[in-house]
């Protein structure tokens, strides 16, 4: 499991950093390693929450939870469980030294004011220009619920998406134009999937590394033009 997380080796010549697709935990570990030391980060509900399991003390990452806290610690266990100390997913969590509490408007000001270095979100679809769809299927009769997704998508300096590349039906979730209702326009900067890491933005979609496939094989799965990213540190 060492090679695929050595992400700095992702050069044009050796895009493939794993000989098999990544599992959810491997992907979470990879995202965790890509987060710069000292960053302030919000991890979305669901798969992104796994990232916290792989952050190291050396990284000194401060986690934000939008219901009103910086310095959130791991999920609470046993006696630690306190109904007044929960995360955005309403799961009991813990408080780390140096934490702080604030009300909802102040908490969303942190997100909306561009103060978070990174948020990590799940997605239904990401477009070639970084549009995000992750809140609503748009299905007739579905009850919509948005929460803080739009604030995170438009507010954080970098928006990382974690998702499987393909739907259960085998369709690419990286698309030319999102067919699901949008969460934000042109906001996603990086997409972590089981088969590759993509960089998205105004210049189109670049591939930083692949897992268990070549760039050519990946291109066959994804309906937008892919190019290899220049070799740079993540």
């Amino acid at each position: 499991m060492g090679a695929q997380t050595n992400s700095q080796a992702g050069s044009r010549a050796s895009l493939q950093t794993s000989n098999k697709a990544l599992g959810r935990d491997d992907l979470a570990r990879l995202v965790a390693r890509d987060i710069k030391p000292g960053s302030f980060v919000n991890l979305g509900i669901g798969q992104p929450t796994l990232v916290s399991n792989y952050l190291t003390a050396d990284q000194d990452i401060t986690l934000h939870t939008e219901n009103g806290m910086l310095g959130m610690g791991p999920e609470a266990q046993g006696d630690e469980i306190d109904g007044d100390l929960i995360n955005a997913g309403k799961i009991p969590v813990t408080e780390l030294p140096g934490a702080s509490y604030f009300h909802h408007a102040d908490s969303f000001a942190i997100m909306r004011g561009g103060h978070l270095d990174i948020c990590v979100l799940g997605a239904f679809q990401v477009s070639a220009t970084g549009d995000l769809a992750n809140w609503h299927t748009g299905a007739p009769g579905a009850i919509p619920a948005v929460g803080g997704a739009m604030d995170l998508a438009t507010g954080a300096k970098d928006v990382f998406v974690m998702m499987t590349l393909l739907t259960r039906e085998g369709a690419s979730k990286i698309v030319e134009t999102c067919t699901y209702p949008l969460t934000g326009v042109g906001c996603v900067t990086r997409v972590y999937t089981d088969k590759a890491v993509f960089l998205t933005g105004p210049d189109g979609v670049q591939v930083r590394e692949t897992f268990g496939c070549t760039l050519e094989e990946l291109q066959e799965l994804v309906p937008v033009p892919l190019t290899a990213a220049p070799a740079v540190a993540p």
Partner: protein
Amino acid sequence: MLNFVDTVADAVAGIRDGSTVMIGGFGNAGQPFELIDALMDCGATDLTVVNNNAGQGDQGLALLIKEGRVKKMICSFPRQSDSWHFDAKYKAGEIELELVPQGNLAERIRAAGAGIGGFFTPTGYGTMLAEGKETRIIDGRGQVFETPIHADVALIKALKADGKGNLVYRKTARNFGPIMAAAAKHTIVQVSEVVPTGGLDPETVVTPGIYVNKIVKVA
């Protein structure tokens, strides 16, 4: 005027049919369950309720919705695994929903308390939640015009109050309390403890008493 009352029934007395009622809390943290139960018992109906969610399980706000007392929900996240009473009313077309991104919900409530007539925000721009709203490009970013959410009444939960109505909260239960207290004409607070005036450090007061109208201690 600040009043300390003895019962939650006294606390909610006077809430009228047709009122807009803000209810604090995110999940169970900060939910003023006893005040919501009292609102249920007092009979006020035709309510517009502002809360992050739209009730969970078979308690509190979910029961108000079940009993048909809520004509409209303003919230960010109505659909949850146990939001069946809202789901049923919504699918039956018996409740109106204004769905608001959570940060816009918080900022619009804050705007009401702060006397702001409206504001532009990038949140929601280019999405279906901005449809029909005024937009403009500011500094190269698309932004949506959002208006304040005022309320007749706020029901919130705090940890402690002093004799002046100053409030402190506990951990993430703080959430919507401070901004709802400022946005409502009449703010009703349930607290776990009332301390003498002077018993809270002025540096640590989160909601100044100017925003508080009624306080009830709940065991």
